[in-house]
């Protein structure tokens, strides 16, 4: 059987989902036989390759960069997996939504008694008006809730996809797990 090409990306999140992924411990070895990791913050590939089989997305869509990235990834991926609550619900990043990005930037960069209070504009992507779950901007095929999803659940999801099954996570995880 051909190995499936797996990518993982990190949008607006805390990297906890990636940590949980690594927490799979010896199950990683089992996965390694079935996948080739072609793009990930865990490895050093610069370009997101075309024709990826499965992409795990951690994090919400918060900035214009996130938006462009996820749209590009969607085009190059057969199955897109929203991994964790940030990708699925917006979670903690979306807590700024009722206030708007300006208020948040002011609070973080101007009001907190910094030595040089200025809102950064160079080399940082502009924030979107509201933080969005991934599936509101591109179609998502599989949802793996949890904050972070337990390692075993991630394993089950990825393993199922490598075997061509639809993952059945009912009862294994939930929002906030």
């Amino acid at each position, binding site marked *: 059987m051909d190995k499936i090409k797996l990518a993982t990306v990190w949008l607006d999140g805390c990297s906890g989902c990636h940590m949980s992924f690594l927490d799979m411990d010896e199950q990683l070895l089992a996965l390694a036989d079935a996948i080739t990791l072609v793009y990930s913050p865990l490895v050093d590939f610069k370009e997101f390759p075309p024709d990826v089989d499965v992409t795990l997305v951690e994090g919400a869509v918060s900035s214009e960069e996130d938006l462009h990235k996820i749209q590009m990834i969607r085009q190059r991926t057969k199955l897109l997996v929203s991994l964790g*609550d940030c990708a699925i*619900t917006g979670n*903690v990043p979306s807590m700024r939504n009722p206030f708007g990005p300006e208020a948040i930037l002011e609070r973080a960069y101007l009001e907190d008694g910094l030595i040089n209070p200025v809102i950064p504009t160079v080399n940082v992507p502009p924030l979107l008006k509201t933080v969005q779950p991934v*599936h509101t901007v591109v179609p*998502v095929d599989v949802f793996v809730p949890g*904050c972070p999803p337990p390692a075993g659940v991630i394993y089950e999801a990825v393993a199922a996809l490598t075997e061509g099954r639809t993952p059945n996570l009912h009862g294994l995880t*939930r*929002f*906030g797990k």
Partner: protein
Amino acid sequence: MNSNVVTLSINGKEVSGRDDETILELALENGIQIPRLCYLEGLSIVGACRLCMVEVLGAKGLIAACATRITEGMVVQTDSERLAEYRRSILEMLFAEGFHVCSVCVANGHCELQTQAAHAGIDHIDLPYLYPRRKVDASHRLFGLDANRCILCTRCVRVCSEIEGARTWSVSGRGIEAHIISDFATPWGESTTCTSCGKCVQVCPTGALFMKGASTAELEKRTDFLSWITAMREQR
């Protein structure tokens, strides 16, 4: 009290109960779970969350199991693909209405909304989030109210008026603007009616009402006091 024993069928199983019982009560007695959020044994029935809707053969529409008494020969179905879809839809709407960030909520892991969603197999919310900007009232010495987590089940309103007798809580506003207020929409901490008994906190199904000092996922709520109080009242 005069009541007769009636026999009916729930999910194809023949069951019997007193005719002053509701479908929900009889189902629970027989180990049949029906999803619910506003219902709580010991409090009056409001039929507001609509999760306990069931199919009754011959009825014009769906029936709220919590608010409907059983009758002889009733044929009740508590679970079907249609009901499951409606329940998922209602739960999704509740998630989209307020602002439920499970990962940082005091009730994470002990939240009835979260549990119901997990049971219903909800793994994402398809409807747009409404992102309301609701208040957090931390003025009370012991407790707090985060209205973003409120699902308007009105258990707090009922326990406060029916069990504690303080009538601190009520509902203000209409439609999507409806919300819980203490006294005349004054801060909870300044309430002249609140006895600080904490019953509202215990019956609240989510983290909307919480105990100060409880951290994420620490707040486990206990509603068993209700059955003690109601049992003692009945004996008196």
